């Protein structure tokens, strides 16, 4: 199924060195997901929806997913 970019609201914790750690995602302003762990952070292309951004590999519950940040805007790839 075709994936699309969905911009989301995110609560971020910023450490002393200026690194961002997303803690919570508000998906379409209705559902709230707490991020249990940030597994990896790197620049990567969003293969399903296009473009390049900082990609946060995050674990929410038992699921691992990607959260992207591009010029201050956060998005996920969803169908």
């Amino acid at each position, binding site marked *: 199924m075709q994936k699309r970019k969905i911009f989301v609201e995110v609560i971020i914790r910023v450490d002393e060195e200026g690194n961002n750690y997303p803690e919570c995602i508000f998906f379409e302003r209705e559902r709230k997901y707490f991020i249990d762990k940030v597994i990896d952070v790197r620049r990567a*292309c969003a*293969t399903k929806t296009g473009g*390049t951004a900082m990609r946060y590999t995050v674990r929410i519950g038992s699921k691992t997913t990607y959260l992207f940040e591009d010029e201050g805007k956060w998005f996920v790839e969803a169908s």
Partner: protein
Amino acid sequence: MERIIIHSDMNSCYASIECSLNPELCGKPVAVGGRKEDRHGIILAKNEEAKRYGVKTGEVIWQAQRKCPDLVIVPPHFDIYMKYSRLASQIYADYSDRIEPMGLDEVWCDLTGYAKTYKEANAMADEIRSRFKDELGITVSIGISFNKIFAKLCSDLAGRDEVYTVTPDNFKEKIWTLPVSSMMGIGRKTAVQLKNYCINTIGDLAASDSEWLRSVFGVCGLDMYRNANGLDMSSVAKYGEYPEVKSIGHGVTCKEDLTDNDQVWRVFLSLSQLVAKKLKAEKMIASGVQISIRDNQLVTKQFQCETPISTRSAFEIATAAFSLFEKQYTWRNNVRALSVRAINLEDEDTPLQLDLYNDYRKHDRQMKIEDTVLDLRRRFGENAIKNCCLMLEDKIPGESDNKPTPFMRDFRKGEKK
């Protein structure tokens, strides 16, 4: 220490970026094309699929569509290409501090000291290739050699997403058999001239007499000889270091052909203002002006002259450009495109030798007026203040897109009162 230099070239840069931004385009023939309405309707870049249909860069869009009816034309997004270029530089910066860009999509990177052998350089090049795919979603061709000229040649020889290496031990077998035109710095005309002297391959050029080449081609002849023999020693600039500015110019293809001198003056005035703005930013003045005229038969002519006073005034540059145009252009055909270039640049603090024939007070007044105009534009927007003759100009792309600025809105409010 033996030098190891890589040249990296993003494959079909603009088209690849467009496909990376929009994955639905992948697998389809895609070309980036200018706006037809602004008469920029040519192919700026195409992807591999479009290349297979014979679509060429620089050809008119309708010609390309005739070759490939399913061709997807997307408009250019230069701000995004700039962003990708910046991100690419960040990748290269992880491998060397000597990075010299050549345009948006090509770069030389000096790995001397960072890679001890060609094997190590190859491993680094492979890593760069894979990072480009993972991080930016585009591919690069990388050439590795012991000088910039051969590194560039190698990246041309490398296929899409491949690395090609030429070392001091094998350059004679790998490079000398190639046609002279494949070497950087040898254009179509020089290649024909060389062919007339039976110099067809880079090997032929390397075996020629350097003094004879200098007598025929001047200093360029010596450069060609050195380059063909792998003796190019030019260094790769440091990251963030820019070469000295030698000229500053601006050009435009008009929406419609220009048919008289008045229209030409307006275009020169508009272009000179952009040139003057850049001159001020660079803190430079020009003592010469060069113009380029392209008529509707696509014949381009170039002329240059000295200005009476070294200047960065838009009005004085436009006046010099226009009098040169009047003197040289015979109006056999209408004009399609014009460009103005400020040449013979020097520092604005360079002492000026005055003479009795020029009105320096007028020049100073003009400079003060223009500095004020530039300041107003900086504070209130580019359209805050304009020359009256440019207010209704509709042949210069962008000139009639008058978005009201806060200053104009206040001005209009004042008018109503």
